[in-house]
């Protein structure tokens, strides 16, 4: 049986990749994908723990996360399309209306 720590390391790695991608990349689509990567990194640790402790709650959580992620994707993609239509760019550095 694969030890729990392997899963966790992989999960941490995936999450870190997501964070790094989120911070480094400028394209909104890539950033969006990085967020999915982080979510799935977390999902992996949930199922790993669920399997390890034999508790179903972890798996239920994963379903919830997946549902939320799907909903978020729908909304997020809609926003991205709206942004592209108004600004003609997908570079986040140019989408800076929040700045003072």
């Amino acid at each position, binding site marked *: 049986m694969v030890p729990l720590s392997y899963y966790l390391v992989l999960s941490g790695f995936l999450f870190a990749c997501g964070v790094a991608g*989120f*911070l480094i990349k400028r394209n909104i689509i890539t950033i969006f994908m990085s967020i999915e990567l982080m979510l799935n990194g977390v999902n992996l640790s949930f199922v790993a723990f669920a399997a390890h402790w034999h508790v179903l709650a972890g798996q239920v959580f994963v379903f919830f996360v997946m549902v939320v992620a799907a909903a978020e994707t729908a909304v997020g993609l809609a926003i991205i399309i709206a942004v592209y239509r108004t600004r003609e760019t997908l570079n*986040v550095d140019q989408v800076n209306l929040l700045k*003072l």
Partner: protein
Amino acid sequence: MTPNLNLWLIPVLPLAGAAINGFWGKRSSRTAVTTVGLVFPAAAFAWALLVALRVSSPGLPYQEYVAHWIRSGSFSADFALYLDQLSLIMLLVVTGVGFLIHIYSVGYMEDDPSYYRFFAYLNLFMFFMLTLILANNYLVMFIGWEGVGLASYLLIGFWFTKDSAASAGKKAFIVNRIGDFGFLIALFLMIQHFGSLNFTPVFAQVQPLAPETASAGLLTAIGILLMVGACGKSAQIPLYVWLPDAMEGPTPVSALIHAATMVTAGVYMVSRSHLIFERAPMALMVVAVIGTLTALFAATIGITQTDIKKVLAYSTISQLGYMFLACGVGAFSAGIFHLMTHAFFKGLLFLAAGSVIHAVGGEQDMRKMGGLRAYIPVTFATMFIATLAITGIPPFAGFWSKDEILWQAYQTSWVYWLIGVITAFLTSFYMFRLLFMTFWGDYRSSQVDEHGRVHAAPGHDGHGHGEPHESPMVMLVPLMILAFLSLVGGLVGIGNRFEHFLAPVFASGAVSETAGEAASRVTEYVLMGISVTVAFLGLFFAYVLYVSRPHLPQKISDGLNGFYTAVLHKYYVDELYAKLFVKPLVDGSTSILWQGIDRRVIDDTVNNAADGARHVSDEVRHMQSGNLRSYAGWIAAGSALVIAYMIWMGVR
């Protein structure tokens, strides 16, 4: 059962007058202000007279509950009034003399732009003074006590655009505050030990106590502290310095507040507390010594002053000293007797002086007067009567009361008597000096003009500096009435009638006097003869120096060079106080409190806090860049930090 006297009306009526004139006086006509300003004190006087007629001796003391005030645990103090023979006399003196002075003010203040304000203040003063007199506990008395101080402050500084008047008002207020401090502590001691401030329970608890022999003791402490309060209000050594300066106020104010009524509040308070003082011989001695010293001290200063009102001011201090001397030797009724006659003749002297000042167009320097006898005969006649009264020449009022005091003082100690007689001589001298300088000789106004400043009392701008002219009837009538009272006011003292009237109040004080009265009658007549002789001596010297040989005073003052200068400058007491108390206080406040604490500590704390907040936020605001990824970076860094911390905690 005494009928309900509605005593509360007496103080409340002038208060109503003050309120009406104070709130609406500015828009009312002068006639309306005069009517309101006169009718309310007149009503108070009338009611006081009615009360005097309706009460019977067995019905006194009469108490009246007005309103609920403080109830805290077992302690209570209510707005309640107390009437006995003592307060009855004070009541009649204050309302009567007060009303006369109100009438006089109508003429004196005629041209003043703040006419309504004057009457509002004057009525307010009456309210507080009557509260002081009628209080049935020390706390209500203290309200009146502070209130008259306030009214006095407002009226001294009545012409507040004049710098000297404004600072004189402040001086009076602050010096009085020192005395009030003593008074308050005495009240606290009473609350602590007697659990009450009402006269009846306090005195009931004091009554059974034996006289304290040691110099330390509760009653001695209370007595001395009360005397400190009285020293402030009644201008005794060492707190007398405010009264001469208070002459900056309009003359009717000097007459009403700083001669006839308010300054006698201390005497009243000491007499009211006579049960305490009688059981504290040490405190009583302090009262007598302070009174004697003040009487002599102020009289010597009075000799050298040239401002007509200043002479009268020092004379007032000196006469108040007599009253305290009387209280100090246990002759409270003699003190109150002198208080009453003094109210008549000193009120009259001030009003007559006001009439003189009015006549010569605001001039107060006696060196620029002279020969006014011919110009203002009525003023002269009344002032002459008042002078005879104050110097103690029979049968004028002052003779009876002053003689009574000297006689009582002699029975305690011949030292008091001797100083009292010397003071009587000095009194006679400076009063006749004032009279001769003002009314005899030639009118000197034009001769001294070159080095004399034009004295501009704001109330007298309209009066020219031409011929001195007699005052209007509205001013002369009060003068005449007071002159009549100064003439006959002392007669109530014949055969100790006044003393017997007050006997129910001062009952325990009269015990020692009955013994040996017949044997000492000869002594009494001898002493009486001496004091009358001394009064005539003063008259004689003043006549020689200021009428028949006018060059002599200059020679004498040159001969006594150093001493004369010291007396002329009032023994440098003001300067001494300025050096001893005022300057350290000002310096300390400037360098420690202002520059040190206020600027360094308080201001700097506030400013530094604000500066710090601004600097920090100046730096921190750059974090809010609007760059999404930098926010994400901060979040990541923050969560990394939290995770690291938790791991570290977990490892431990």
